């Protein structure tokens, strides 16, 4: 036993309350999602028939198990609406992540090369928009992109276009919104790895005959890959389930899975299908989530 372990007992004791809270409000709700995804739709309040009711005893539970249905999931794979929206979510998430990486890397790299005291200022400047409301930032773009918004005014004034361009309700607007909202999530992990990099490594590379560009691709970039991974996952996962941005900025002809779920839940009031959609979405996200969890834990436990 060591002094560290002397701290362990009270520390574990401290963790009891948050542990119980997370089990109750994070883990258990997933049980409900799973359960309701296997139920039948009903026109009632709540709008589903419970699969089983614990108050009715074991026999009822047995009977209920017989009624468990995968109908909702069958619907998901048979109806094009769902398959297309899953596909669209993946395409949007991958495309956005790539764009984010292409834009975020040069910015993070520029930050890491600033003189020390300017680095913290730059970091602050990147973080501040992250603190201002997400919804407000999307709204700010609607302001600019609308039919008679600032962008069209400028384009018209410069005679680049002769009639106002439709920006809103297009995929370009949605990508713009996503990139804008998630940029700090990409920059910060990239910056963290780039700033930690030892300048002596670059000096060694140049001493051994590598010109700066080569030194970047042979030394800097490979060493920044953990940051690239963290940033990519940090963006990819939530974008797959994104709702607000596509809802406000993209057209209504094709939906992302988050929108489909919302539609089923709020408009069609088909809770079982919404729950099944959520389960399937979660299944889609399990591999990247596990990967991210491992990265996070390694970072934190290393004290990074």
């Amino acid at each position, binding site marked *: 036993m060591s*002094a*560290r372990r*002397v701290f362990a*007992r*009270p*520390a574990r004791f*401290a*963790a009891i*309350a*948050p542990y119980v*809270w*997370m*089990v109750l*409000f994070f883990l258990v709700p997933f049980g*409900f999602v799973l359960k*309701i995804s296997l139920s039948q739709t009903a026109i009632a309040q*709540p709008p589903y028939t419970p699969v089983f009711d614990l108050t009715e005893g074991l026999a009822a539970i047995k009977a209920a198990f017989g009624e468990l249905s995968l109908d909702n999931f069958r619907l998901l794979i048979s109806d094009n609406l769902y398959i297309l929206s899953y596909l669209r979510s993946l395409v949007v998430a991958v495309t956005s992540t790539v764009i984010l990486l292409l834009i975020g890397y*040069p*910015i993070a*790299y*520029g930050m890491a*090369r600033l*003189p020390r005291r300017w680095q913290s200022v*730059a970091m*602050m400047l*990147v*973080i501040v*928009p992250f*603190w201002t*409301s997400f*919804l*407000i930032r*999307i*709204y700010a*773009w609607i*302001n*600019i992109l*609308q039919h*008679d918004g600032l962008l069209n005014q400028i384009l018209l004034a410069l005679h680049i276009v002769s009639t106002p361009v439709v920006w809103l309700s297009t995929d370009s607007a949605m990508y713009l919104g996503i990139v*804008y909202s998630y*940029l700090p999530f990409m*920059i910060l992990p990239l910056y963290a790895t780039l700033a930690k990099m030892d300048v002596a490594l*670059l*000096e060694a*590379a140049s001493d051994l005959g590598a010109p*700066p560009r080569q030194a970047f691709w042979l030394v800097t970039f490979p060493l920044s890959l953990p940051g690239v991974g963290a940033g990519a*996952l940090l963006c990819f*996962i*939530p974008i797959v*389930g*994104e*709702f*607000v941005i596509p809802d406000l900025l993209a057209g209504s002809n094709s939906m992302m899975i988050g929108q489909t779920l*919302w539609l089923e*839940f*709020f408009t069609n009031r088909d809770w079982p299908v919404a729950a099944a959609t*959520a389960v399937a*979405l979660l299944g889609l996200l399990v591999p990247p989530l596990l990967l991210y969890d491992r990265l*996070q834990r390694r970072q*934190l436990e290393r004290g990074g």
Partner: protein
Amino acid sequence: MARTVNRISRFNITSLALGLAFLYLPIVILVIYSFNASRLVTVWGGWSLRWYHEFFNDRAMLDAAWMSLRVGAVSATLATLLGTLAAVGLARGERFKGRALFSGMLYSPLVMPEVISGLSLLLLFVALDAERGFWTVTVAHTTLTMCFVTVVVQSRLTSLDRCLEEAAMDLGCDPVRAFLFATLPLIVPAIAAGWMLAFTLSLDDVVIASFTTGPGSATLPIRIYSEVRLGVKPEINAICTMVIALIAVLIVVASFASKLSSARGESAAPL
């Protein structure tokens, strides 16, 4: 102190400047337009506080704003309490049974799509037959934001020198006192940053609040969202500007506090 190989290039400066402009320009434009006297966005009608007046006479908006502030304050406080305890458990609890599950539960919500978290919490509340409103939103926000608090506080705790706790024990503190006297004062900036993060996240959320709130208790983002779906309204510009101002004040206070604490010999809290 830039060494030769680390010299900043024109490309570096340009990408940094463009990036920051991209991040800030839309917000600046929004703020400017909130003072536009004209109802039409196209026309600049001169400076005016008209839309701010409009907001302060909009009963429904004011109620929503008040609801959001209450939810934000209560959930951020709860989240800070729980998140700090969780961070202590993870950073000082060594290995324990269920640790992997615990940290998994705490890290997942950071990236979990909000539609899933929102839906699952709603189904729980329905099953519990809880009346939806202030408390359900608060519980939902606490659950989400405490994870952010945990990450912020835990990273500060792991970066602290454990010798300080040992020194406190050596000087007569039992483990709990050693934590209170030697560790807690040093993580206060991180805890404060955690609270602010939790508060702003709560103030920002549309999706989870939409799922977990009940009729008649809309939060500000829900109201803004439904207005925005109908098109741009100058009043929204004014509300957004005020929210930005509130958050800006919080950030200034926080950075001032962290400067103060770094002047006291502590490293600034990670925001």
